[in-house]
């Protein structure tokens, strides 16, 4: 299943090219806009260079950890090929997770060539805490996959899930801080962002990298708690979902 996910990520050459171009363009555009904003009125908080490095990293991470398992799972439920997934001796969740991990690995391979370009455009320097960054990044990725699997299971209750998938995508991107760093979120929005698990997908690793978070122990402890809690929720949800199985189309 890992292999399938990997091969699918690399199946279409035009797709690979466009993804790379999009990533470089997005980082470049963010740089232009924020430089202009800061040029007009120096903002409080992060210095410009740190902000640019943060945004570049957060977006690079978002591309690298982007999950496609939700749309794949929903498509297979819609057309009924989920039958075969359920008929396998290997558990459904394990198949989905392997598929996503393989797909991410494939995605990393195609992103690899543009990473130097992005780092250059985003003027990224060496990480403030390399091991801490990797640790929080991996934990964030596990949380991202768990959340995606949870949304995938929604398909067993709802036939049409594109709205839920869109909601999940927007919320996770916004609260991960890929567009605006969480430090700039006002009042209750900041509290909410702080409480939700999405910040581990973007903000936390990037902030560790640029040195805004210097002690990672607290963040790691809470991230691990999320990983365990979401795993429990997944098992529970799946045991309920499989009782609802109805294969569509005869």
């Amino acid at each position, binding site marked *: *299943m890992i292999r*399938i996910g990997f091969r699918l990520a690399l*199946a279409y050459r035009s797709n690979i090219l466009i993804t790379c171009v999009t990533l470089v363009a997005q980082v470049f555009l963010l740089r232009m806009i924020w430089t202009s904003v800061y040029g007009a009125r120096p903002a409080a908080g992060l210095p410009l260079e740190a902000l640019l490095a943060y945004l570049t990293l957060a977006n690079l991470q978002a591309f690298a950890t982007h999950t496609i398992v939700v749309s794949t799972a929903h498509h297979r439920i819609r057309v009924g*090929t989920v039958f075969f997934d359920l*008929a396998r*001796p*290997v558990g459904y969740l394990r198949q989905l997770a392997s598929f996503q991990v393989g797909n991410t690995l494939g995605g990393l391979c195609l992103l690899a060539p543009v990473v130097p370009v992005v780092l250059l455009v985003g003027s990224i320097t060496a990480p403030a805490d390399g091991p801490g960054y990797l640790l929080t990044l991996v934990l964030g990725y596990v949380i991202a996959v768990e959340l995606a699997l949870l949304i995938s299971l929604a398909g067993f209750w709802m036939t049409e899930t594109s709205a839920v998938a869109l909601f999940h995508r927007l919320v996770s991107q916004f609260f991960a801080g890929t567009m605006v760093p969480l430090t700039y979120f006002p009042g209750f929005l900041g509290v909410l962002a702080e409480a939700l698990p999405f910040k581990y997908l973007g903000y936390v690793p990037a902030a560790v990298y640029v040195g805004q978070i210097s002690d990672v122990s607290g963040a790691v402890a809470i991230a691990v708690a999320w990983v365990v809690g979401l795993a429990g929720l997944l098992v529970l949800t799946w045991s309920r979902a499989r009782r609802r199985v109805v*294969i569509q189309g*005869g």
Partner: protein
Amino acid sequence: MIRVDGLTKVFRRPRTFSGPLGTLRTLVTRQYEEKSAVAGVTFEVGEGEVIGYLGPNGAGKSTTIKILTGILTPTSGTVEVNGLVPWRDRSANARNVGVVFGQRSQLWWDLPLIESLRLVGSLYDVPAARFATSLKKLRDLLGLDDFLDTPVRQLSLGQRMRGDLAAAVLYEPPLLYLDEPTVGLDVLAKEAVREFIVETNRTGRTTVVLTTHDLADVEALCRRIILIDHGRVLFDGAIDALVDQPRRLVVLLESGPGQVRGVSRDADGRYVFDIHDDLPGLIASIAAEHTIRDLSIEEPDLESVIKGIYAR
């Protein structure tokens, strides 16, 4: 190999409403409709048998197969497949069965065929050596070599079906469920699929449960059929017994009375006689009293027999 006793499956879904605000009412309703897909099915299949599991669309065939694979849990009844209860020992049961659906494919659309076969090998823990010999055999038997490295989306339907058959038997399951494996195929491709089923059954003693609407499949492959409709078994037995009926003489007369030689005129104005031995004598005796406009002789065939059973 398979033992099914008193199997029922009732689906429960929210009632849908039509008319103004219908969608909204459907969304909030607490009323449910119950639909019984399988209503007390009992049968047994022995090891190495090839049985035709037949019935009109919506008869409950696919639901039965989904229960036999352990994906659906029945509402009541007992099922044993190769000594296992499918939905309780789902994983162990999965290793015992291969499934082909003519209407949907287990192959990955965007990837070369070989990738899907490799996936099946790894999901079913087929050791590398056994995978290689199994694949070699299937390449010869199904002629996979021409398109093993072609993305599935570029395969013809016949090629795709051969790929699906290969994926279903790659781990050599003792039991195969084939749901319309010849649907949409041309004559030659159908023939290839049938030959493959015969070969698999012969060499591996593989038990086959075949669902199809093409009775030529049944005549070529099965000695026994189970007919179901509305979730119930209508017939279970040998095909030979089913078609072992007298030939019939169908006569149209210029002007016919209500009855001729004890046979009533049917709705189409035809008189249908069972032919026992003396066909010329039967025709002569009718012709002596009436003017025959047309006559024909009907051989008993599976299709008309099955139609007759459904119509009951």
